[in-house]
C-alpha cells in the first residue's frame, strides 16, 4: 500500500520535473528569440522580416474569415444570454454594460487565442515536428543557420503582431453582433448602442484585452515550437505532439486569463 503511494508520488514527481523542464525550455527559447532579434544583425545572421511577414499572412490574414464568423456568433450569443438573464431583474437595458466589458476584456482575447491555438499553434508544432524528423532542422544547423533565428523568431514576431490585431478585430465584430441582436430585440438604435459602449469601455479595458492577447500569442508560439521539437518517431509522433500542443496552449491561455482577471480586478 505504502509502496504504491510512493510509486505514485514518484511518478507525479517525475511528471512535474518534466513539466518544469519544458517550462524552462520555453523561457530559454524566448530568450534566444530576443537575443537573435537584438544581435542577429551584428553576427550577420539577421532575423528575416520577409519571413515574419509571410508568417503574418498565414497567422493573421488567412484566419480572418473563421475569426469573423466565430466572433459574430459569440457576439449574438452574448446578447441573447445577457438579455435573457437581465430580464429577471427587468434590467435588459443594462445588457450593453455586460457585453461591452466582457467582450473587450475577456471574450475577444480568449476566443481569438483559442482559435489561433487550434489553427496556428497546431500547424507550428506539425511543421517543426516534420522538419525535425526529416532532418531539415539538422540541415539548418549544419549549414550554420540557427534554427531559432530562422524559424522560431519570425513565427514569434508574426504572432505578437497578429494575435492582438485579430483580437482587436474580433472584439469589434463581437460587439457588432451583439449590437445587431440588441437593436432587433430591444429596439435600441445603433447610435444609442455605440454611445453606451463608448461610455462603458475605457481605454484601459482595451489595453487589458490586447496585452493579454499579446501574451497568448507568445504562449501559443512557445508551446507549439516546444512540442514540435519534442516529436519523435515519424508521422504518428507528429500527430501526437500536434494534439498535445493544442491542448496545452488552450490550457495555458485559460489559466493565464484567469490569473490576469484576478490580478486586474484586485488592483
Amino acid at each position, binding site marked *: 500500500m505504502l509502496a504504491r503511494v510512493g510509486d505514485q508520488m514518484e511518478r507525479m514527481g517525475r511528471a512535474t520535473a518534466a513539466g518544469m523542464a519544458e517550462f524552462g525550455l520555453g523561457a530559454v527559447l524566448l530568450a534566444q528569440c530576443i537575443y537573435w532579434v537584438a544581435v542577429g544583425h551584428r553576427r*550577420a545572421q539577421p532575423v528575416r522580416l520577409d519571413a515574419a511577414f509571410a508568417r503574418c499572412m498565414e497567422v493573421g490574414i488567412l484566419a480572418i474569415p473563421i475569426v469573423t464568423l466565430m466572433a459574430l456568433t459569440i457576439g449574438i450569443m452574448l446578447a441573447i444570454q445577457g438579455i435573457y438573464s437581465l430580464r429577471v431583474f427587468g434590467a435588459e437595458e443594462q445588457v450593453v454594460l455586460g457585453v461591452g466589458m466582457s467582450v473587450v476584456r475577456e471574450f475577444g482575447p480568449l476566443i481569438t487565442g483559442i482559435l489561433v491555438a487550434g489553427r496556428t499553434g497546431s500547424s507550428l508544432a506539425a511543421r517543426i515536428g516534420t*522538419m525535425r524528423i526529416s*532532418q531539415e532542422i*539538422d*540541415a539548418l544547423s549544419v*549549414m*550554420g543557420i540557427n534554427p531559432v533565428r*530562422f524559424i522560431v523568431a519570425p513565427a514569434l514576431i508574426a504572432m505578437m503582431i497578429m494575435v492582438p490585431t485579430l483580437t482587436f478585430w474580433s472584439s469589434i465584430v463581437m460587439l457588432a453582433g451583439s449590437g445587431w441582436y440588441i437593436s432587433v430585440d430591444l429596439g435600441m438604435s445603433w447610435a444609442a448602442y455605440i454611445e453606451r459602449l463608448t461610455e462603458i469601455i475605457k481605454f484601459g479595458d482595451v489595453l487589458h484585452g490586447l496585452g493579454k492577447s499579446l501574451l497568448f500569442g507568445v504562449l501559443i508560439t512557445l508551446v507549439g515550437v516546444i512540442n514540435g521539437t519534442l516529436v519523435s518517431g515519424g508521422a504518428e509522433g507528429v500527430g501526437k505532439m500536434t494534439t498535445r500542443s493544442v491542448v496545452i496552449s488552450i490550457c495555458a491561455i485559460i489559466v493565464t486569463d484567469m490569473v490576469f482577471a484576478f490580478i486586474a480586478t484586485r488592483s
Partner: protein
Amino acid sequence: MSTIAISEHRSNAPADPELMAAPPMIEVRDLITHYGTREILHGINLSVRQGEIMVIMGGSGSGKSTLLNALLGLLRPTSGTIRLLGQDLNAISDVERTKLRQKMGVAFQGGALFSSLNVLENIMLPLREHTKLDRNTMRIMARMKMQVVSLSGFENLMPAELSGGMIKRAALARAIVMDPRILFCDEPSAGLDPVVSSAIDELILNLRDAMGMSIVVVTHELESAFKIADRICVLDKGHILTVGTVEEVRNSANERIQNLLNRRTEAEVLDPDEYLRRLTGMQQ
C-alpha cells in the same frame, strides 16, 4: 621504394608526402558518445586527409549515423575530440562554429530539403544566408551546381514533386553550393536504380578530383563503396574493426568483416520513397 609508392598510388591513397604531412581535415580521437546512459561509440579514432574519400560502413545499428552526427556537431560527445580543419568542433565559440560550418557541406540521407522552398531556393539558401552576393549571382551559382548534378530545368519544382534520386541530387547540389572543404554524404545512393546510383558515385569522384574536397560517405552499398573509397572504415557495435584501402578490407582475414560484407549484400536498405511516404503521410 619507388615501386611501393607507385602501388600505393594505384590504390588511390594519397601517397604524396606533402599531403601525408599536412594536418588531417578530420581528426577524431578517442570519441565516446552516449544516448542516455547507453554508450554507443566506444573510443573511435579516425582521420581523413585532404582530398580523400573515406567510406564508413557497418551493419545496422553499428553506430554509423551516430558517428556522422558527432562529426557534424549535432551530437555532443561524452569524451574525446573531433577536429575539423584543425578546429576542435566542441571547444570553439558559436561564431567560429558557424564559420566552420560554411566550409562543410552535408547531404542528408532523406535529402532534408526544405519543403516550403523550391529546388533552386533550397540550393540558394546557404548563399543567401552567408554571402552578400546579389540575387542574380546567387541564382547563377545555384544553377551551375544544378548542372553539376544534372538537375537543370527542375529549378521550380517543389521537393514533394521530386523523385528519390532527384532529391538526393538536389541535396548534393545544396551541400556543395558553398564549395566546401569537407563533404559529408549519408547513404548517397541507397535505394536508387543502378544507373542513377553509379552517376552519383561518379559525381562524388569528380568533386574530389575537381575541387580536392575531403569526402566522408556513409553507405550500405558495397559496390559503390568499393568504387569510390580511398579508404574504408568498418564499424561494428561502436568499435572500428578496421580502416584500410579497398583491397585491404576486401582481403581482410577478419571473420567479422567478411561476415559483414557478405551479409550486407543481402540486407535491405531504407527505401527513400517509403521514407517520403512516411513524411508526407502526416499532412493528411
